[in-house]
């Protein structure tokens, strides 16, 4: 449902993505791995339309539509969700108000009536349990005072609430201990379906023990240089990235 063709993108005039080609079909989980600076976060930010990044070449189609024709909020409403690597805090804005605005915007986009207050609270209770998110956290301001692990769980909670077609998890495992990692991964797995897809961006094999990918890509220097099955992740874990650089003749 996602087709990326020859994507080039820059930030502050510097080219980071140098021709990405990627196709994700419904029901698939793709892992994107690579060393620091390879362009992993750039790719996720470009897909969700962060204004700091400029697309200089190439195309992305999402559900047969030109993704770049949509504003960031419309891309969200079309069904793309990004779990941020560093979720930002928004003091004063309660999770409840925040989520209710988001949900109702999505519903409006799809021609649905906004949720009643009671239906919404019921939905929140239901989805909170998927990532074991404490009710106290749900009543606080967005991410305010949340620990690293709580912030990541909150990302997956929002994902559960918005039910996206394509989820992009940007280094969701960074800063998490084993237990938090397991809870987050379980949450992602519970949300998996034959009609939605996930792109998992990560450094480490660890997360992929829990979220089993169908395809693994290596992103290096702005290009996808290798694509294979899940065993590729294990090989990277064992051998690092040097052998790939060697293969490329560096």
């Amino acid at each position: 449902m996602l087709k990326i063709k020859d994507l080039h993108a820059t930030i502050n005039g510097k080219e980071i993505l140098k021709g990405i080609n990627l196709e994700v079909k419904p029901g698939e989980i793709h892992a994107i791995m690579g060393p620091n600076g390879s362009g992993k976060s750039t790719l996720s930010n470009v897909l969700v339309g962060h204004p700091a990044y400029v697309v200089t070449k190439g195309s992305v189609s999402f559900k047969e539509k030109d993704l770049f024709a949509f504003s960031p909020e419309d891309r969200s409403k079309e069904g793309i969700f990004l779990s941020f690597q560093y979720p930002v805090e928004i003091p004063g804005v309660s999770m409840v108000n925040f989520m209710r605005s988001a949900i109702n915007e999505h519903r409006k986009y799809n021609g649905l009536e906004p949720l009643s207050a009671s239906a919404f609270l019921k939905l929140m209770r239901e989805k909170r349990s998927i990532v074991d998110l404490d009710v106290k956290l749900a009543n606080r301001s967005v991410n305010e005072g949340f620990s690293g692990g709580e912030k990541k769980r909150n990302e997956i909670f929002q994902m559960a609430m918005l039910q996206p077609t394509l989820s992009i998890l940007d280094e969701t495992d960074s800063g998490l201990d084993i237990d938090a990692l397991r809870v987050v991964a379980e949450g992602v797995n519970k949300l998996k379906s034959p009609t939605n897809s996930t792109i998992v961006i990560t450094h480490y094999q660890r997360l992929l023990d829990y979220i089993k990918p169908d395809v693994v890509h290596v992103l290096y220097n702005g290009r996808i240089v290798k694509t294979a099955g899940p065993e590729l992740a294990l090989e990277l874990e064992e051998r690092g990235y040097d052998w790939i650089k060697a293969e490329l003749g560096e």
Partner: protein
Amino acid sequence: MQEEFKGKNQLDVEQLTKEKYKYGFTTDVETDIIEKGLNEDVIRIISAKNEEPDWLLDFRLKAYRHWLTLEVPTWAHLRIPAIDYQGLSYYADPRAKKDGPTSLDEVDPELLKTFNKLGIPLEEQMALSGIAVDAVMDSVSVKTTFKDTLLEKGIIFCSFSDAVKDHPDLVRKYMGSVVGYRDNFYATLNSAVFSDGSFVYIPKGVRCPMELSTYFRINAINTGQFERTLIVAEDDSYVSYLEGCTAPSRDENQLHAAIVEIIVNKNAEVKYSTVQNWYPGDENGKGGVYNFVTKRGLCKGDNSKLSWTQVETGSAITWKYPSCILRGDDSQAEFYSVAVTNNYQQADTGTKMIHLGKNTKSTIISKGISAGRSENSYRGLVKVSANADGARNYSQCDSLLMGDKCGAHTFPYMDIHNDTAVVEHEATTSKISEDQLFYCNQRGISTEEAVGLIVNGYAKEVINKLPMEFAVEAQKLLSISLEGSVG
């Protein structure tokens, strides 16, 4: 955003269409305007038109003569173009007949249409919410509702001019007792040429069962609005008073120099809330209302309580310090404020808390929001006199900056003459980051809506103090007033 309107004044339709200010219209109602200019004759005419007693005319004349000796104050953090006081008209009476209407049926239908456009259909208000409305239309009160219902409890809620006629002793006793005619340049001017306003009297032991409310607007070109409000709460009484204003699009600036005086007696409580939405000028800083107001309360009796809550989003220039004199022992005052400035608006606002009695307490929560190229200043005074044992004050002044071309300033003054006083002051400055906005975008929330969420979250503490009816309007107002400030 075009409303249907008729106006004998020249209004630039194109300008109106571009503006988001939805109250941009005038009414084709016969306005009986005195010629421009200010001199003793004009004052005598105003007094005569209101059929005022001699003592009130004397009050006006004393004030006027004092005003002639004064110079315009320039100490505020404001740039105010010179005002031509002789170029203003000081009186406008929209009533076609000499005698005002006594029931809704008798009100000029054009006026009723005006009130409906403002979103305050009087009939609906009367029937449903039980709020008594005292509508001041261009310097003269047109009607007052629920007068009779309140009168059963002995509560007086009427126009100032009616109060002068029906309750002269009360007015004479209290008028000028909190804001004397010599208080400041604009108060002196008001004391000379005040038009009309509200009078509220709550007798001993009475709890006013409904929120009292006033809506008014400035209509005719070059007419200053000089209204006066006087609220007296006798021992053991309670009243909550709402003041909400809107004004139409204007090219010339309109001066609004009002006075509000409040007297709170023993064990009594007065809550005064304002949602101010005067025309702020266009995005180039042209036009807009000048809101130079003197508001002050006297916590006269022991254990008396006064709270000021304001949401100020309009006016080209806002200059006001709703204050409280805590004379009674154990008296308390609160000041909650959200002041928004956008485009080229300016605000220099805050409060003065004067602690005189024993064990007095004051709380100040001020939230400034600056956007565009505006300048937003908080100026506050906490004064504890030598005999004011056990005084307590807590002040919190927060500024939220949106963009890098606006200004936020804080001028806190503490004048403490008693060493048992506990005075706390906290201040924060913050901005809405692009990351926060993008986070909202990625969840499907537009930037405009995100700003609204964040701003309302920031101002929540103050908005929560407003009576419910106002709170909803205030939230919408915050969002509207910041439209276009990010992007």
